[in-house]
């Protein structure tokens, strides 16, 4: 409840220093504002404390997207709150000023009508009725402690707060001073203005309803937060758009980096005119170019080394051949040394051949030369030639006339490598399989050896990985590149290679690869002279 001393129309100072009404009012009015500000400041502090956590939990994009609506919400809230407080204060001040002006005017009328201290009660009542009719406000005239109210049920002497009377008493030192106070009667807010008229020993009260002002403020209290919500939602949408637009270049960079990681080293980010972005774009492009150059240099080096090795190898190989023809002429020790030399020259030769093939893959110069191949004959012939004996080939029904589209030279190399691998580490090839699967064929090579431990099944396709058990073999003649070459051939075909347990028998490994290919059935088979015919013709 606030009590304030007002200023009479004459311009006299009403609020004197030390007056409790004025002194109490101001701080109490401000108190809620300070309290609210304090709470908000506290909330901000705790937000700052949590921001590290938020940064870790929320993506940059989410944070950017949230920044807009949150900032808007905070700003709009402050504005709305400020507006509400200011509006309420100024509206009330206006009302109070109006009410006081009105009360002074009417108080003047009361002096005229009631006249001197001897005025009749009837005249006072009539004056009260007239004032009430004209002004619309409830009035109350107290003359020497006697009250005159046209409508006592709505406004009577009991409604006047004690504090106001005290304030008036003190004010009565200076004649014509008004007191004003906000009260609540029957649940509705009102302003009571009291004017002390000591000359006629009378106090005049007027009651002004504030309900309409309250309603206006109430509806604003609803409407402004509503508007705040709408603006915040708009800001959220804008924030989302902004975050997406701002982070779009990041997406480009991510895709480019992924492409580079996937060996597409010619990937570059498109040039941009934005100065900040172009710095990143240039740095990224320079990095990829340097990487590409570095890799190209490594590839060239490997290729050059392999090429340079070929001429001496040629000489070694031919000379060993000459020596081997004369092995009988050599002593035992020399013959044994020659055998070692011959075996390692062979191995050296395969290694260089494999390295050359690999360096061609690394330089990206490899291209598929797809041919149609009669699968059944092809697999049987390659398996027979690689294994040096007939090998069981398991085909799907009708598979004997199946045509697949593959790079024949590469598939020959793949199969012969796998079959040689089976011979070296798996007790020899037991079966070659062909299965039709969705989008292509799956070709498998099974052996009856000890199998490959699960932990090594992926690593086994790495270069120079021969498996823990294979590495210990003294008689190992593999180059360590065979399986990785097979994997490269498979990759070039757009296929997939894996190692698993053999499908038959207790032990054994199965190396299988999937090649995407169009399959077809040869309908003119009777007209084809195939390898079996060629063999029987001889």
């Amino acid at each position, binding site marked *: 409840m606030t009590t304030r001393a007002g200023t009479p129309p004459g311009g006299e100072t009403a609020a004197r220093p030390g007056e409790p009404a004025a002194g109490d009012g101001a701080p109490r009015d401000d108190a809620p504002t300070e309290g609210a500000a304090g709470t908000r400041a506290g909330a901000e502090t705790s937000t700052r404390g949590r921001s590290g956590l938020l940064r870790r939990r929320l993506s940059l994009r989410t944070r950017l997207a949230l920044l807009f609506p949150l900032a808007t919400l905070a700003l709009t809230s402050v504005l709305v709150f400020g507006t509400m407080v200011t509006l309420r204060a100024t509206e009330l001040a206006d009302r109070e000023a109006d009410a006081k002006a009105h009360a002074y005017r009417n108080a003047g009328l009361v002096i005229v009508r009631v006249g001197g201290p001897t005025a009749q009660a009837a005249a006072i009542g009539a004056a009260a009725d007239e004032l009430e009719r004209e002004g619309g406000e409830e009035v109350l005239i107290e003359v020497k402690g006697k009250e005159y109210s046209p409508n006592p049920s709505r406004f009577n002497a009991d409604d006047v707060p004690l504090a106001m009377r005290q304030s008036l008493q003190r004010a009565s030192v200076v004649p014509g001073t008004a007191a004003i106070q906000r009260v609540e009667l029957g649940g509705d807010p009102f302003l009571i203005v009291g004017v002390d008229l000591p000359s006629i020993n009378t106090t005049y009260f007027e009651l002004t309803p504030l309900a309409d002002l309250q309603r206006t403020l109430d509806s604003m209290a609803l409407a402004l937060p509503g508007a705040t919500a709408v603006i915040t939602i708009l800001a959220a949408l804008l924030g989302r758009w902004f975050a997406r637009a701002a982070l779009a270049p990041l997406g480009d960079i991510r895709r480019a980096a992924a492409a580079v990681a996937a060996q597409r080293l010619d990937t570059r980010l498109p040039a941009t005119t934005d100065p900040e972005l172009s710095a990143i774009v240039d740095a990224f492009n320079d990095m990829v170019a340097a990487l590409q150059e570095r890799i190209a240099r490594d590839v060239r080096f490997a290729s050059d080394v392999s090429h340079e090795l070929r001429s*001496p*190898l040629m000489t070694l190989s031919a*000379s060993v051949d000459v020596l081997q023809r004369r092995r009988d002429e050599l002593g035992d020790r020399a013959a044994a040394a020659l055998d070692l030399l011959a075996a390692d020259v062979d191995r050296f030769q395969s290694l260089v051949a494999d390295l050359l093939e690999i360096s061609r893959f690394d330089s990206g*110069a490899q291209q598929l030369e797809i*041919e149609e191949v009669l699968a059944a004959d092809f697999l049987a012939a*390659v398996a027979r030639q690689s294994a040096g004996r007939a090998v069981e080939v398991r085909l799907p029904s009708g598979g004997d006339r199946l045509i697949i589209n593959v790079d024949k030279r590469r598939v020959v190399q793949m199969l012969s490598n796998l079959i040689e691998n089976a011979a070296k580490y798996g007790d020899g090839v037991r079966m070659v399989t062909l299965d039709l699967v969705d989008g292509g064929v799956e070709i498998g090579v099974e052996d009856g050896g000890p199998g490959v431990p699960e932990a090594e099944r992926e690593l086994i396709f790495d270069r120079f990985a021969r498996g823990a058990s294979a590495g210990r073999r003294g008689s190992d003649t593999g180059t360590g590149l065979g399986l990785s070459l097979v994997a490269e051939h498979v990759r070039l075909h757009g296929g997939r290679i894996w190692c698993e347990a053999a499908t038959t028998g207790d032990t054994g490994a199965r190396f299988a690869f999937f090649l995407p290919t169009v399959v077809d059935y040869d309908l*003119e088979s009777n007209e084809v*002279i195939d390898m079996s015919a060629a063999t029987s013709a001889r």
Partner: protein
Amino acid sequence: MGTRILTVEDDERIRASVKMALEDEGWEVAESENGELALETFSRSPTDIVLIDIMLPGIDGFEVCRSIRKVSDVPIIMVTARNDTHDVVAGLEAGADDYLTKPFAPKELSARIRALLRRVRSSDHGVTQLRFADLEIIPEEGVVTVGGEQVHLTKTEFRLLVELATSPGRVFSREVLLERVWGYGYFGDGRLVDVHIRRLRTKVEADPANPRHVVTVRGLGYKLQA
């Protein structure tokens, strides 16, 4: 007189060791360190097989091959650094009958040489004369005529044509032709067949782009028809 082989190779040690390995097979070997000397040697003395390294100082292997092909149908083996399509096909287009990729085993070289010698000398087809409209083949005499006029085929082209002619109308897969003409089978290079067929067509077909006799059967191989 035995078989005489001319090797063209600029690396002295390779030349010496390969010469010894080939001599161990019982062949006589003449060697040249560059293309100019090779052509000179070739024109001076009879040669049964030529082995040419593509990478030569001065005139390169392709050029040596083309020069020899202009005057002779002697079997030529090219030695390439890589088995890239470019080098292989260029070598075959220059007139080579077969190719090897460095480093090769001497045994592989001997096998190639023997295959080329064998097929040049064998004529045991039991077919005396074949006629396909305007195309006539007389295997015994090694003669092919088109419209009555004799055309000149290399020994490999001739052998390829005769193989196709043994079963006219039937399709020969590349593998069968590789096996029968080059002695390779499935591990051979189909490009050998394709390039030789192309060369054959330029000689026996009126319109090589739209062949009438030596026909491609898509995905399966080739066949000869009238």
